[in-house]
């Protein structure tokens, strides 16, 4: 972990940094590829809707000694779908299976009777409608639409419209990927899945907002300097929050991963698996998209502004002038290589007590005396 520790320090000092914005085309490409895969998967395989959405059949048996989990296995074998089994007060079993029509229900009834060792005549079969009717689903969509509109308005006011657009793109990206994975894996879509998706929605925006918040802060006085272009500062703000992003994502993914791999792995398919898969994919995609898509997209949009274009011109002109004078102030990417080589060697012998920190190199603290306090 000490590696990660110094990573934070070096990111902070800008000694190392990944050129997220510069290589955005690569990441856009990768994202588009993943999104297309997800959409194709969705189109080809479709979603496997659970009983809550499409209805199915419910079988009520007579009193039986077969356990609930055993009956669940039988029902899933007989039908090939997820089954919900409940024991009724009188010892009978109620078995609900999604996606069954009348023709198939007779066949399943026979098989169930054999497995459960009961008289098929005593099994009562009926078709059930979805407990998540159209109205419930419609309301959920309606809520989603209202929320998105509000959040775009909020982001446009609190930040700016470009960030609102970028956040929305990142959000759609996350949801598409998650739904696509669902289609590809073929898990049944249950209310749990939908709720997982809604959770992702909130999380994806949350994560994006944290990165944007730092971006907004760092670009506050951008036109008053001629050292960096917008894209470069965007890059710096991503790198500045990178440790936070990594830590938050790890902390969010660990328990969900526990649910998915341990809980789901031990028990096989189930509601737990459904929810944790959508959460796992969505959380990972949410962290990825806020760094690799949302922020570069903002930089892209921002660079189209005349103001930013002018700034870029000034910055480049200044760099050209500096280069002519033979100063090596700029071109941070080249310097990064240089620093990295020296960092490890430097860090170890430099033993500094807390007192020593106060004696700061004046160049490092240059921003501190200013009232704006940019570098906080």
């Amino acid at each position, binding site marked *: 972990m000490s590696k990660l520790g110094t990573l934070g320090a070096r990111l902070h000092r800008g000694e190392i940094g990944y050129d997220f914005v510069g290589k955005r085309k690569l990441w856009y490409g990768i994202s588009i590829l993943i999104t297309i895969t997800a959409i194709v998967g969705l189109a080809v395989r479709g979603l496997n809707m659970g009983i809550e959405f499409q209805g199915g059949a419910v079988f009520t048996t007579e009193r039986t000694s077969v356990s609930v989990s055993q009956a669940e296995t039988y029902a899933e074998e007989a039908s090939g779908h997820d089954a919900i089994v409940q024991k009724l007060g009188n010892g009978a079993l109620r078995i609900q299976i999604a996606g069954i029509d009348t023709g198939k229900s007779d066949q399943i009834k026979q098989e169930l009777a054999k497995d459960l060792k009961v008289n098929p005549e005593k099994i009562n079969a009926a078709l059930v409608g979805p407990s998540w009717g159209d109205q419930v689903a419609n309301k959920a969509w309606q809520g989603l639409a209202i929320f998105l509109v509000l959040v775009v308005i909020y982001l446009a006011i609190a930040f700016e419209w470009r960030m609102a657009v970028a956040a929305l793109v990142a959000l759609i990206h996350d949801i598409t990927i998650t739904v696509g994975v669902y289609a590809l894996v073929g898990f049944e879509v249950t209310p749990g899945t939908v709720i997982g998706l809604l*959770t992702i929605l909130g999380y994806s925006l949350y994560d994006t907002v944290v990165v944007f*918040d730092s971006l907004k802060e760092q670009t506050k006085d951008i036109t008053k300097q001629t050292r960096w272009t917008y894209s470069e500062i965007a890059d710096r703000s991503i790198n500045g929050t990178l440790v936070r992003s990594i830590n*938050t994502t790890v*902390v*969010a993914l660990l*328990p*969900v991963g526990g*649910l998915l791999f341990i809980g789901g792995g031990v028990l096989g398919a189930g*509601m737990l698996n459904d929810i944790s898969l959508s959460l796992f994919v969505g959380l990972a995609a949410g962290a990825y998209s806020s760094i690799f898509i949302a922020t570069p997209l903002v930089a892209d949009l921002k660079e189209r502004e005349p103001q930013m274009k002018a700034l870029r011109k000034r910055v480049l002109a200044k760099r050209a002038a500096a280069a002519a004078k033979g100063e090596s102030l700029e071109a941070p990417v080249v*310097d990064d290589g240089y620093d990295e080589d020296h960092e490890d060697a430097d860090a170890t012998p430099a033993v500094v007590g807390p007192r020593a920190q106060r004696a700061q190199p004046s160049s490092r603290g240059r921003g501190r005396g200013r009232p704006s306090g940019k570098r906080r």
Partner: protein
Amino acid sequence: MAAPKKGRQGTQGRPGRTLALILIAIVALTGGMFASGHSTPRLGIDLAGGTSITLQAKNEPGQKNAINPTNMNTAVDIMNRRVNGLGVTEAEVQTQGDSNIIVNIPKGTNSEQAREQVGTTAKLYFRPVLTTEVSGGDPAASPSPSASSSASTGSDKDTDKDKATDKATSSASPSATSSTQGRAVTDALKADPTPSGSGSASSSPSASPSASTDPATAKLQAEYTALDCTKKTVRAKAGDGAKASDPTVACGQNSQGQWQKYILGPAEVEGTDVDKASALFDTQGAAGWKVTMDFTSKGAKKFASITGKLAQNQSPQNQFAIVLDGEVVSDPYVSQALTGGSAEISGSFKQQEAEDLANMLSYGALPLTFTEASVDTVTAALGGEQLEAGLIAGAIGLALVIIYLVAYYRGLSLIAIASLLVSAVMTYVIMSLLGPAIGFALNLPAVCGAIVAIGITADSFIVFFERIRDEIREGRTLRPAVERGWPRARRTILVSDFVSFLAAAVLFVVTVGKVQGFAFTLGLTTLLDVVVVFFFTKPLMTILARKKFFAEGHSWSGLDPKRLGVQPPLRRTRRVSAPVDTKEA
């Protein structure tokens, strides 16, 4: 943004006091939880099982083909909203076959009440009273029936006047009605001079003079004479199958607890004209619990017109009856047109009754009549193993989180873990308390949501810690670093939590059922996150920043300047160039 200000004063100035406050709050809440006897959250039907009610749609005479998928779905939707009330009870409603509806209610809900709520049709009509008398017993021996109608109706500003008129009427015509009932009804049905009949040509019962010979009228009269409201079976049948546009007979109980029978005119205002209804405790007057209704604009017009007409009549024809499922709930007098667009039903309601009635009126009438086919207890849909596996997996995941935090943040992880713990305890306690309070039930998706909330809660202090570390990297000592890092971290936390909360609030308001339950959990955890960070994490950090272990940057404190890569002044001479300048933004 009141919270940040409070936070700054409270935490910077007296962190100890803030900490003590929140700890006392937690202890009090926990104590309350144990005192109330609900020490675990109520679980949803998928985790705990519950009661399953099967309702069968009943064919009604005169309504062929009423049992169709559209009506069934409407019924499911209405039942869902009735039984889920606030949307956090996790009840499930679905159709079974062509004419059945299954309602699953989690354990711990009052299933009797739920059964009554889902099955009641709640057909509400406002009908003019044509005639009325106390049913059963000797009419002459009974007290004046007009005095019995103590219930008052009207928009708020009219209420007092109404009451006054009520009194006046009852005293002025002490026993006018009981003796003249027979004649009154025939008069009313002949209907020519009485405004209730002639006033509205379109909907008057049998406004034509020929009505007296109308067999329907004679039949109604006969029905009325035969009606004995003291018998429960008779009562249930009274007015069965009556259409809204026909006059009918009905029973109702007056404030003395006597049964009263009525002949009622055609419905002038229907339940669908009610926009919203709510239960209210009347603190003035001794009316107790009552239900107030707001009409839709169409309903308000209709209501104004009917009350306007009725006000000109003599008793009892200046009364209208509020008829719910064939029974008269209230039969107030009208002294003037009520144009306020709202009305109230008062009766001898208990709180629960008033709330149930308001609930039903708000969510509408069922398009079909249902009978209970069966009631069963059911076990958890997911089985105990699923929950157990979830909890074990969650615990392992949490342990991994703690290991990661300790490895990365060292001493600081103590603050992180303590904050998570406080957050977890508060979530648990509040969820347990909300079970009995608003019927909140926790289902598996909500449990998973709470596990994700670990990430969101942890994010808040990760943001804070990273800010502090950045400050230290810039060469500050810990105490100023904490105070300078906090305002920025605070803003980030509030901005991002706001987005989360917005999502929760919108989903809660717009949606129904499970999504609403989820939105509630999300909103709750987001709020708790803010509370914990402001009133626990920050003050704790401030206090610990004074401790030598942290302030001096012990190598296990997580704030060791060396490990954080604070650059020694020595290096200044050598490395004055690029990396140093990249800091300037």
